[in-house]
């Protein structure tokens, strides 16, 4: 088992004929992902990487019964590509694009409300269930199947967390990068909820960072959870001085200032295992039964 994607997940790729898409789709195919087709408007009817290309997501879904999409479309095209995916009622869409306008994300978030589509990203390495499905840009060679679920707001620290599971002699059930833009699609609660009810996941590693209140909201949700799997959490950004331009200026007045320490306190109060150094994660993992 795993969450959101596995070896049976049929995946289409939006923007399949681009260079980066071709590179990454080939890698995803090589590591077992069931990519069943692609979408590039105007190139429908052709073959790319031996996969059928369609003009629209709707056609692709009708022909292939795909339920998920990995988009390698430029940031400015994410909104319209996502609208297509939502209208085709896909279960899951992943966007790795860096630089999606804030306004587009506001509209995307409003579009997703009341739809069945879950959106991971943007600006994320994506989602990977090792050995089964890779939707994104993960270096698949550092992953190995196992029973630790990983969810991270920081792209590159996701890889760091994966290496920590390895150091503890463990592997990953599914790894989810949420992305660290001002607005994100899927959040910690969606991910932890899924891991918590996944029979193959024994424990969860969560990576948060300064900015936004995503961690605190997850903490108060987790606190009320009846049956909870252990969550080991690391939060980056303690050394950033108050008021530094990093992050979003609106944060402080929209929610009051929340320091990294405040986040850690909230998470630990909720019953999560908070580590101070990212390289301490493997020590905590090793302690788990």
């Amino acid at each position: 088992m795993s969450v959101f994607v596995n070896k049976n997940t049929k995946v289409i790729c939006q923007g399949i004929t681009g260079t980066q898409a071709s590179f990454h789709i080939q890698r995803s195919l090589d590591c077992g992902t069931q990519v069943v087709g692609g979408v590039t408007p105007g190139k429908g009817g052709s073959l790319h990487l031996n996969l059928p290309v369609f003009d629209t997501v709707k056609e692709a879904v009708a022909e292939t019964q795909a339920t998920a999409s990995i988009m390698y479309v430029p940031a400015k095209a994410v909104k319209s590509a996502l609208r297509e995916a939502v209208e085709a009622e896909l279960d899951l869409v992943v966007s790795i694009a860096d630089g999606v306008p804030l306004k587009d994300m506001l509209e995307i978030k409003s579009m997703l409300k009341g739809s069945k589509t879950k959106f991971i990203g943007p600006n994320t390495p994506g989602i990977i269930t090792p050995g089964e499905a890779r939707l994104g840009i993960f270096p698949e060679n550092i992953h190995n199947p196992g029973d630790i679920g990983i969810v991270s707001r920081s792209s590159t620290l996701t890889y760091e967390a994966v290496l920590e599971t390895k150091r503890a002699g463990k592997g990953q059930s599914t790894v989810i990068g949420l992305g660290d833009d001002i607005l994100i699609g899927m959040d910690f609660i969606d991910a932890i909820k899924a891991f918590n009810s996944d029979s193959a996941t024994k424990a969860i590693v969560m990576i948060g960072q300064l900015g936004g209140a995503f961690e605190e909201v997850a903490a108060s949700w987790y606190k009320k959870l009846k049956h909870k799997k252990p969550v080991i959490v690391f939060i980056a950004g303690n050394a950033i001085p108050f008021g530094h331009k990093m992050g979003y200026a609106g944060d402080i007045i929209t929610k009051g200032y929340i320091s990294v320490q405040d986040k850690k306190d909230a998470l630990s109060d909720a019953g999560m295992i908070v580590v101070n150094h990212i390289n301490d994660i493997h020590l905590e993992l090793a302690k788990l039964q």
Partner: protein
Amino acid sequence: MNIHEYQAKKILSRYGVKIPKGMIAYTPNEAREAADKVSEKGPWVLKAQIQSGARKNGYFLEKDAGAEGGIRIVTSRRKIRANADEMLGSTLVTVQTGPSGKKVNRIYVESFCAVEKAFYMAIAVSRVAAELTLLVAKDYDGDVLQVALTKPEKILKVTLGLEEKITSEQIAQIMKFLKLSQRSHKSLERLVNSLHKAFWENDASMIEINPVGVMKNGELIALDAKISFDDNALFRHPDINLLQDDCEISEREQQAAHYKFTYSEFDGSVGCIVNGDGVALTAMDLLRDKNTGTACFINVKGGVDKDKIASGIKIIMTNPRVEGILLNILGGFLRCDLIADGIISAASEVGLNVPMVVRFEGTNQARAKEILENSRLPIIWADTMEESIDKLVKALEEAA
């Protein structure tokens, strides 16, 4: 991207926000002429145009710039030129600029507007809810961050739709919160709707009016204005893009922005080259635990262009604060070998005269290590993030 107050006011007034009459001046003579045009008898307000809040309580580094701050109320026409002369070309330091301050190249000359009371209004994005939030603050002395930290009950938050106008219930709520008289009702509604429309149509990430003044007749007037635009949406607004003031950001920041890398400066001694803000934050935390500060970091993201990466690395290598370099790359999209090539080409141009610790993980890591080993650059290798920090701190101690 931020713009100056006078530019923000100009944009907002196009949307129907009332602003005092004002003109921009680059020289003392222009200031004098502007004063004549904006008000017959004064008083006038001379406002230093640097992109910072708290200008009034700031001070100038130069002694001959006088003891007053960056916002001056001048009652006599004869003193306009002298005050403008003091401010122009001088360096204004505020709590937001840091000790080196910012040079004042232009001043905004405004007609002084008497108000009965003032409040704060802003539109920002609430991240978790993914909504637009209107913020209104009362009973504060200008520093809204302090209010947010210490008296959150003095801030009212109202959720706005993305494009719909504010509801009459919401307006009533704000009226009550601010204890405004009925005379201000129309003006308040117009102000909120104008700010909202300006935010939405221009891809702003935040708009702040600090403060809004309430005039004797109940009308609301924006005495200050700040607009931050979403960098990711500037491609839709070529006109706004032109407003970027290059004097406002350092040359290194400009270079990094040119290559679409993120670059941040702090007051320590280590330069970090990473491919993710999270990695940078983590490295900074670990360095701080070892009593070592970060000078700057550059996030080369998922770069695929070798020359751009080399230019990014050069920005770190040539920062005079940098006494040691930490390179931590976890390659996914980004290939480690491109980084290795970038290091060599940057080092061959500007030299590598400080200790450099390198840790590669992920795509093409072995090839990257091989490239650097063949280059004979004095690289210190590390396998984990912690090890990279330990080795760099040790190298810094040895170099000292």
